[in-house]
């Protein structure tokens, strides 16, 4: 395919083709898939930037950071899109990211003033279940029920790590007790989100750890209203997805332009029905029809990036100890 594109470039307006600046954005795999935001974002940005936007899928959020660390200062990437607040502390520590100058009217339920990273979407973790089944209203009720759940391993997946933080943010030192209660509800722990969600759809469990926005996919894309997310009284932990500019980019202006574009209407209106998350800035046309059916948690839980980084090892140790017994 590459050769074809190359040949087409040579045969066509080769001079113009060669001079088009290229902006390289590293992101996670599902972002670049045909049904993800990637293709639409690329088209919309290229229409305004006079550049060639190259989206590179590199695993998921955690793998993305590892990739940037591996490449270090010589990375080809200009922008990294797809880290979350559980990873930003580690990302900043690398010293590879530059500050940004983007400001926007964020629709986030929390205050956002991070000098390095710009949020582009967010969501709440939640347990998704079949709408016709009653759902518990908090972790204690879930633990007391006979509901079977599938969760993801915090050592290999970002939602799994999010759940760890959720329990920690809601229960603090009581977290091990919650995990002890949950241990007989957990059918199994999977490597990543795809395995867990697939198992849930196969009927292996009553509930799966996913997002409050997951039912919107089924409703809007499949016209299937049979999935709901359970609203938990202790609040829902948030995942804020962010992007940042690399300090060693050879396209600093384009990178800035991309970050600003990212919080603009053109980009944000693509997010809800492709990435199935809430946009960081509400688009002028509002949220797509169907999103109003989603649960709106009363309380948003989010540990600051430093708290998350400090708590992670201890929380992981507790989780391992409790569930290994």
């Amino acid at each position, binding site marked *: *395919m*590459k050769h074809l*594109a190359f040949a087409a470039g040579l045969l066509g307006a080769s001079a113009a083709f060669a001079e088009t600046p290229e902006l390289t954005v590293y992101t*996670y*795999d*599902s972002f*670049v*898939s*045909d*049904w*993800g935001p990637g293709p639409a974002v690329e088209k919309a940005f290229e229409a305004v930037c006079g550049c060639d936007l*190259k*989206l*590179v*899928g*590199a*695993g998921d959020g*955690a*793998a993305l*950071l*590892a*990739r940037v*660390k*591996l*490449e270090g200062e*010589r990375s*080809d990437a200009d922008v990294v899109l797809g880290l979350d607040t559980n990873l930003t502390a*580690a990302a900043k520590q690398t010293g590879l990211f530059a500050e940004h100058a983007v400001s926007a009217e964020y629709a986030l339920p929390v205050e956002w003033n991070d000098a390095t990273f710009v949020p582009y979407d967010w969501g709440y973790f939640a347990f998704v279940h079949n709408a016709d089944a009653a759902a518990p209203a908090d972790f204690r009720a879930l633990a007391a029920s006979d509901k*079977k759940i599938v969760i993801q*391993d915090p*050592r*290999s997946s970002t939602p799994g*790590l999010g759940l760890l933080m959720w329990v920690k943010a809601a229960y603090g030192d009581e977290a091990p007790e919650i995990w002890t209660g949950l*241990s007989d509800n*957990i*059918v*199994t*722990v*999977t*490597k990543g*989100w*795809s*395995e867990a*969600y*697939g*198992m849930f*759809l*196969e*009927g*292996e469990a009553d509930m799966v750890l996913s997002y409050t926005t*997951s039912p919107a*996919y*089924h409703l809007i894309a499949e016209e299937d209203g049979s999935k709901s997310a359970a609203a938990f009284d202790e609040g829902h932990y948030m995942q804020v997805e962010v992007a940042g500019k690399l300090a060693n980019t050879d396209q600093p202006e384009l990178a800035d332009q991309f970050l600003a574009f990212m919080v603009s209407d053109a980009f944000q209106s693509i997010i809800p029905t*492709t990435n*199935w998350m809430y946009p960081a800035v509400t688009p002028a046309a509002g949220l797509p029809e169907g999103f109003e059916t989603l649960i709106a948690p009363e309380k948003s839980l989010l540990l600051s990036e430093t708290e998350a980084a400090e708590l*992670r090892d201890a929380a992981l140790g507790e*989780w*391992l100890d409790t*569930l*290994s017994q």
Partner: protein
Amino acid sequence: MAGHAQPVSAFPGISAALLVVALILGTLGAVALRAEAGTGLGASDWAALRFTLAQASLSALLSVGLAVPVARALARRRFPGRALLIALLGAPFILPVIVAILGLLAVFGRAGWLSSFFGLLGLEPVQIYGLHGVVLAHVFFNLPLATRLILQGWQEIPAERFRLAAQLKAGPLAMWRLLEGPMLRRVAPGALAVVFAICLSSFAVALTLGGGPRATTIELAIYQAFRFDFDLGRAALLSGVQLLLTGAAALAALRVSAGEGFGAGLDRAVRRWDGQGAAARCLDAAWIALSAGFLLLPLAAIVLSGLPGLADLNSTVWRAAGNSILVAAISTVILLGLALPMAAATAAGRNSLTELSGILGLAASPLVIGTGLFILIYPVADPFALALPVTALVNAVMALPFAMRILVPRAREVLGRYGRLSLSLDMQGWAFVRRVYLPRMRAQTGFAAGLAAALSMGDLGVVALFADPDFATLPLQIYRLMGAYRMEAAAGAALLLLVLSMGAFWILDRGGRWHAEA
């Protein structure tokens, strides 16, 4: 057979082996060098080590234990569709883990066919999660491989031996003592070592069906060290532990599996005069039916769930499929270029170093190899541009252990029997390779090539690190589809992958055996 002149030079094989060792140890070294001060192994790492060893031992014993009667039944019987069945039985081994697990769950899961059937009888649903679930899945994956390896052993007993045994009126017991027992002693330890090593480095299966943190394997510890801690030192250390374990297992297996073969026959089709009684027929039929049911039902589930999604497949999926085919083809060529000389060198030489280096591929973590290659390539070239050859090369090295297990016994046979004759005819080097070695290795070469192509087709490992926007392989595309909630399209793509893997395996394996066996 060792210690005297051989018609082939061991040099190309030893060079290939050195290349493989350099790739595996070099990448490990590259990762270790990039690491900051290591932290050593913690308590959880030791727990992971214990669990890894326990499940791998159990899985290997059960897979090979069950493979013996299944292979024996397949060796003794001829029936319509036998070749197709043998090819189909190979399918579980080459499926991407997530696809295979969903297939297994459709049969053995909480809402699966078996549980529904039990529900009709008023019984509790089956409980698949836990150590037994892990072992069940590993047997599902590895029983086909073990069966094929052992079946190969049966087929390597020359037809003349069976004829002789039949003429001497050897009963089943004598047949076992004279022919089958010694063959198994030679073949089974190798199969055990291979399955053990495969299960050592498995982690998605262990995690998904293990039920929780108890089911932690070393590979998961490596994965975590990379992804969340970016602790290259710990990753390299754990990877070293994994290499040592597998190396030790492989050495032990090679020690016990050495021994004389059965000598050469005239390459006649094998006919069996034993096991024609009604009891033997029923027993064989039962083994074949049971194993076919166990292995084919989950595949049927994958086919059924994938059919509706086939309509959803778009050009990206087809392009990914094209990439997968290309990678598989290159990978297979590289594999044969490494394995055939290495098998010859192993057969010609006294030491088993070439053979051991072939096994190393099993123990190495693809994540560590991928990262190491990235570190090595990055300063001199664009890793994106090398995505295809690198993926093909690593897949070839990963398939090498299987190829060696398939090729080496036959290579020993060929060199042992035709070596002196060829030398006396002054047929050496390329002439020997072309006229004697390659033709006699054809069935095994086809099997090894088929396995390599199919394994490479289903591999997800390294490509993720090197993935280029225009370069997704089919397994990667399946994950991308799932990540975008397109479960139906993902199921369709999984079915396509199953068909491609099976097709590649069948064509190559069949091509190798064409004309060689009825």
